[in-house]
């Protein structure tokens, strides 16, 4: 016998009843109620925490049992077995495993799944997407941190000419162009946009005493273009943003983060090395030494230290550990040079 409350489904009246099992029949007896219901017709709700559990009878009536432990014996007599999810939700071990699994899936997804997915997607996206995003990002940047260049036209033409020469050795890049801008906030810097635009800032041009060093930096940036790194990063941060907005709940800012992401992007060491290797090979194909890129990096580190505002580190901050990269590049220069 289990104490329960009976509701007929037609009014909110509560009736105190007792439940018992009699062969294939569930007996419900109490004030104004005397019912026998075939056990096969009784639907038993899941046990969600310590909430009163319900035994649903035909036509909207049900019995509610508060003492869920006591109910277990009755359910056993009725031959009822809880569903597997219902049981898992209450088992400490299952819950622990679920926690570990969720955390593991999230970590693996973020560390490997996200970059791999973004890379795969970036490869497959039509060129138009890169162009659209590139134009949008440039428009936002031009309205903010970027200002018109102060370089004389002859100097720009000279650098543009050398850039197109350099780029000739990279036929797999369908679209590439060079743009000149000035930016007090970004200092000596250069970066690639998803549409193949390489933005070269005045401060970087000024800090290099040899044009071949500038070419080395451009070759490195073409590496980012060739491997679609910027698009990959934008896709990644959009995915993270989309997940967060889904979790937190504002969808409108989904793509608003793209310009910021393109700027603040700190390429992973892997992507930097990839671009370095590409840049080194491109320099070699142009008959230039890959060591130039190492020299350019060294030069940038020096300028950064000389600069008045250590808060802004320009190129060096967005292109991490330089010592290792220089060593790697000089080693590369030796192998490529011996060919």
């Amino acid at each position: 016998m289990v104490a329960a409350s009976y509701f007929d489904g037609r009014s909110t009246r509560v009736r105190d009843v007792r439940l018992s099992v009699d062969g294939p029949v569930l007996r419900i007896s109490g004030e104004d109620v005397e019912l026998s219901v075939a056990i096969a017709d009784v639907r038993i709700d899941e046990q969600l925490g310590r909430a009163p559990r319900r035994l649903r009878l035909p036509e909207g009536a049900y019995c509610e049992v508060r003492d869920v432990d006591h109910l277990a014996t009755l359910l056993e007599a009725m031959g009822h077995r809880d569903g597997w999810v219902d049981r898992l939700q209450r088992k400490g071990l299952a819950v622990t495993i679920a926690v570990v699994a969720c955390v593991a899936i999230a970590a693996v997804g973020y560390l490997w799944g996200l970059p791999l997915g973004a890379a795969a997607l970036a490869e497959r996206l039509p060129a138009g997407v890169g162009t659209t995003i590139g134009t949008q990002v440039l428009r936002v940047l031009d309205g903010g941190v970027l200002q018109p260049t102060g370089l004389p036209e002859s100097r720009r033409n000279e650098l543009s000419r050398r850039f197109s020469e350099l780029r000739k050795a990279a036929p797999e890049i369908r679209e590439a162009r060079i743009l000149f801008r000035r930016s007090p906030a970004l200092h000596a810097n250069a970066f690639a946009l998803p549409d193949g635009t390489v933005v070269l800032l005045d401060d970087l041009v000024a800090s290099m005493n040899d044009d071949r060093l500038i070419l080395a930096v451009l070759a490195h940036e073409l590496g980012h273009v060739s491997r679609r790194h910027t698009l990959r990063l934008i896709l990644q941060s959009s995915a993270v943003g989309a997940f967060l907005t889904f979790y937190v709940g504002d969808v409108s800012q989904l793509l608003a983060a793209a310009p910021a992401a393109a700027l603040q992007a700190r390429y992973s060491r892997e992507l930097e090395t990839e671009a370095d290797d590409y840049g080194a090979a491109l320099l070699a194909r142009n008959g230039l030494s890959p060591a130039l890129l190492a020299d350019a990096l060294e030069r940038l580190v020096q300028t950064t230290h000389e600069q008045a505002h250590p808060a802004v580190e320009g190129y060096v901050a967005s292109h991490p550990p330089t010592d290792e990269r220089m060593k790697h590049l000089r080693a590369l220069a030796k192998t490529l040079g011996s060919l």
Partner: protein
Amino acid sequence: MSDTGDALSGQTAHAPEPFQFTGTGAEYFGIWIVNLLLTILTVGIYSAWAKVRRMQYFCRHTEVAGSGFDFHGNPLRILVGRIIAVILLFAYQVSVRLHSPLTLVVIALLAVVLPWLLRSALRFRLHNLSWRGTRFRFAGSLGGAYRVFLLNFFLAGITLYLLAPFTHQRLKAYQHGNSWFGQTPFTFHARAGQFYLRYLLIVAAIAGAVALVIVSGIGAEFIALSRAGKSGAPQDPRVAFRVIGMLYAVIILLSVSIGPVFRALMTNLIWNNTRLGEHRIECALSPWMLIWLTLSNMVAVIVSLGLLTPWAHVRWMKYEMSCIRLLPASDLGEFQAAAPEDVGAVGEEVASVFDFDIAL
């Protein structure tokens, strides 16, 4: 039944009946994490079943007058609704970004479909909610839905939101004034003026905060100028960063506190002016308590990388429910469920209804 029994039940029926939430964070955590894992493993499909469990957990642990609520939603229907919602959202996002003539077509289509969809959502929600075996229902007309969701929102938009409090009042009047518990109707009594008063209060608070930012921003700019003058440098970006950082801090603080304050003021107003038959409802959420809960929940969820989400939900529910009381005018055992034929007709309509969660 004897006379004394009647007198006793009559007396107890008139005592206020507090709502309470009896769930615990630890209990809900198990349900949440197992369903989350199943949702991930099924690429989101299981989320409909997870939602039913979540709703059932929260409804069944919410009690008034000794009885809990219950949720009867069908996971398959929720799944269909979610798929449609995702498609609509995607269509909207894509069309807004494309800037083509198609954009207008999609937006116009959405404007036509949305009121119907929102009404369906209100119906779905209430039809699947019950207390003591009696279902709630929503009987708002389709015309009413278009008036509120299309006309009133449009009016609010073109008047630069001057009519927003009025629209809010119309929305709540439509929602609460057309809700039923079995055969007993809900009625809504809050006037537009009361909405305006609360909106004004919040706008004044925001204006005060913005004024504060402007004053302190001028201070920061002054420092930047004097520094630049001394060193001869055109501009120190660090100062700019500091100003931006300060601005962000204020924006975050504001956005964290406006929501809870708004929710407290509005929820109190709306429920204190909603009646179920002759029974009144009393709601006394404290804005400060909601700010505290929002802030501490946010920190807990972020620090635990989301793992404390269930605890935060339960904590919020416990507080909100502890602030609501039902003031019965008569015996709560006297509500009658809707006639069975009504339920049948209604049930059929619900089959075409989408679950489209709207937090209005």
